């Protein structure tokens, strides 16, 4: 595993390369700096997880990659290189031809992600509009894909409408549609949040199996640490619009370097083995992102904050081979800035 990561880093360029991305939302009350200096790589054939709480900007990042942002969003700096092309610079037409072909997405709510008045068959054939082949070939591919995501009796179910499927089945249909075009990158925005716990397990296993089978990369956005630990190869932890720490999944979960990552891991109820009357929490609130921010964004809630945290933005410090974190505490040690 570790060796694979190393090879990935030294040889081929990553499939998706987000560099110094900053994004603002214009609101009546001012500019909300929703993403600040986000850098993230998605290597080919790997699953990269983005974890964070609400307001951390994880979904905004996914939507930026897909180009699905609302009108008031404004990318102020940075680039998103996908297969060598900057998604923020290429013309809209070229970008559209990438979507639903090399790039596809699974949304949070399977209840609203499908068109309610068209059959699954029509929607699954339409999504292959980039591909060649006759309608019947496309239909056969759709049946095959439905079978692979575990829809029983796919031939007959193809003519059904979305409302005739249950929530879990609908999310399977969404995944089938997203993978039908054999994308290089699948962006999954909280695909299990709207589902029950026992279905979440199924969907995670399904994504893992299909990913190894098809060989695509997945950008998996979730607030559920357990799901990320289970599915992902690499993890980026986001807080208030910044990636505070990223690295290989084992490093992050076994050896978290950033105080926020540590606090977040401590809070997860799955971690608490003993019966206790008081659960760990992160005191304080996510700071407002209105206007400019100076210093470490986590300092108001950080138990280890000191003077430098107020004055200076922390840079990325490299810990070990494949783990970076933005925290001044790491700078005092022998570590070198990345």
């Amino acid at each position, binding site marked *: 595993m570790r060796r694979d990561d190393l090879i990935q880093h030294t040889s081929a360029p990553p499939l998706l390369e987000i560099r110094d991305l900053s994004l*603002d939302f214009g609101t009546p009350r*001012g500019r909300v700096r929703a993403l600040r200096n986000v850098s993230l790589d998605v290597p080919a054939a790997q699953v990269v997880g983005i974890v964070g709480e609400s307001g951390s900007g994880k979904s905004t990042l996914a939507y930026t990659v897909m180009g699905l942002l609302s009108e008031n969003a404004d990318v102020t700096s940075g680039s998103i290189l996908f297969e060598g092309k900057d998604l923020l610079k290429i013309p809209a037409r070229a970008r559209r031809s990438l979507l639903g072909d090399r790039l596809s997405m699974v949304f949070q709510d399977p209840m609203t992600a499908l068109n309610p008045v068209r059959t699954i068959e029509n929607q699954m054939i339409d999504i292959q509009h980039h591909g060649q082949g006759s309608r019947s070939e496309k239909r056969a591919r759709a049946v095959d894909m439905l079978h692979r995501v575990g829809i029983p009796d796919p031939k007959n179910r193809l003519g059904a409408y979305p409302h005739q499927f249950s929530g879990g089945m609908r999310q399977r249909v969404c995944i089938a549609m997203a993978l039908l075009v054999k994308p290089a990158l699948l962006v999954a925005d909280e695909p299990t949040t709207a589902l029950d716990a026992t279905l979440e397990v199924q969907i995670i296993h399904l994504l893992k199996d299909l990913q190894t089978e098809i060989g695509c990369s997945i950008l998996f956005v979730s607030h559920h640490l357990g799901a990320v630990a289970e599915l992902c190869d690499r993890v980026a932890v986001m807080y208030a619009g910044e990636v505070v720490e990223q690295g290989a999944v084992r490093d992050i979960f076994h050896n978290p370097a950033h105080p926020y990552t540590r606090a977040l891991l401590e809070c997860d109820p799955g971690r608490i083995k003993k019966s206790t009357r008081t659960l760990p929490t992160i005191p304080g609130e996510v700071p407002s992102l209105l206007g400019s921010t100076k210093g470490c964004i986590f300092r108001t809630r950080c138990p280890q904050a000191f003077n430098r945290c107020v004055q200076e933005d922390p840079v990325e410090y490299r810990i070990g081979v494949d783990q970076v974190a933005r925290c001044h505490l790491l700078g005092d040690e022998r570590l070198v800035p990345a």
Partner: protein
Amino acid sequence: MVRVEIIRPEPNDAVATGTFLRQLRKNRLGVLGALLVVLVFVSAFFAPLIITHDPIKIMVGPRLAPPSLDFLLGTDQLGRDTFSRVIMGGRIPLLVAFASLGSALAVGVVLGLIAGFGPRWLDNLLLLVFDTIRSFPGIIFALAIIALVGPSLASIIFVIAMTSVPIYARVLRTQAQGLLSSEYIAAERSMGAGTARILGVHVLPNVIGPLLILVSMDVPAVIAWEAGLSFLGMGVRPPTPDWGAVLNDGYSYINQTPWLVIGSGIPIVLATLGFTFLGEALRDIFDPKLRKDL
């Protein structure tokens, strides 16, 4: 009434500036609308103080005279002062608009709440009644009623209220039904709140906003209706001054002077625009979901 949000744009702020300009433009229209509405109201309310001549007194000046210092908008075919007639003539359209829409709103709210929160059969019955009323073409319905009860202010108010009630009731019913299943209504009921309290305190304030916007946008239509019916001779009787009646007179003498049409047309246009702008601004500010653009 109109809340104008002043947003200070930041430098180098292309997107936010765009939103800001758009909002400002929209709200400018709203401010203009509010000013026009206030103007119309003030002139109608203080009409007796503003007028220069008795609006129904015949032969205060020459017939069909062009505007002069004495007769600001000229005189009509009976030598009455057009300016005074137009100023006084604003009272009736406004009265009609507020009486008819006010009563329609009151009845519509009650019926809408009954339909939305009452038993299923009552809901169905009320919907049937609403649809029956709405299925008549408006103008034919109005002519039929006026033919039955005779032309008068009361019948105009009645007709307009009649045709507006189903629309308001339906809007309110749909909104109320959406709220019925919301969690905070369940929370109130779980605390033991009675139906009256739930409807009055928790439902009505949340549904009345869109309805008031709808009403404010209906005002110009009603002014036009009233003017139209008076123009057809179905409204107020002469010699009562009224925008529609003056317009009708002007229409008859358009070959001799344009001033009657201009004098009565401009206030109708201004009032209509004023209420429309105001209504749209209210809609944009209080209920972004109803916005047609965006």
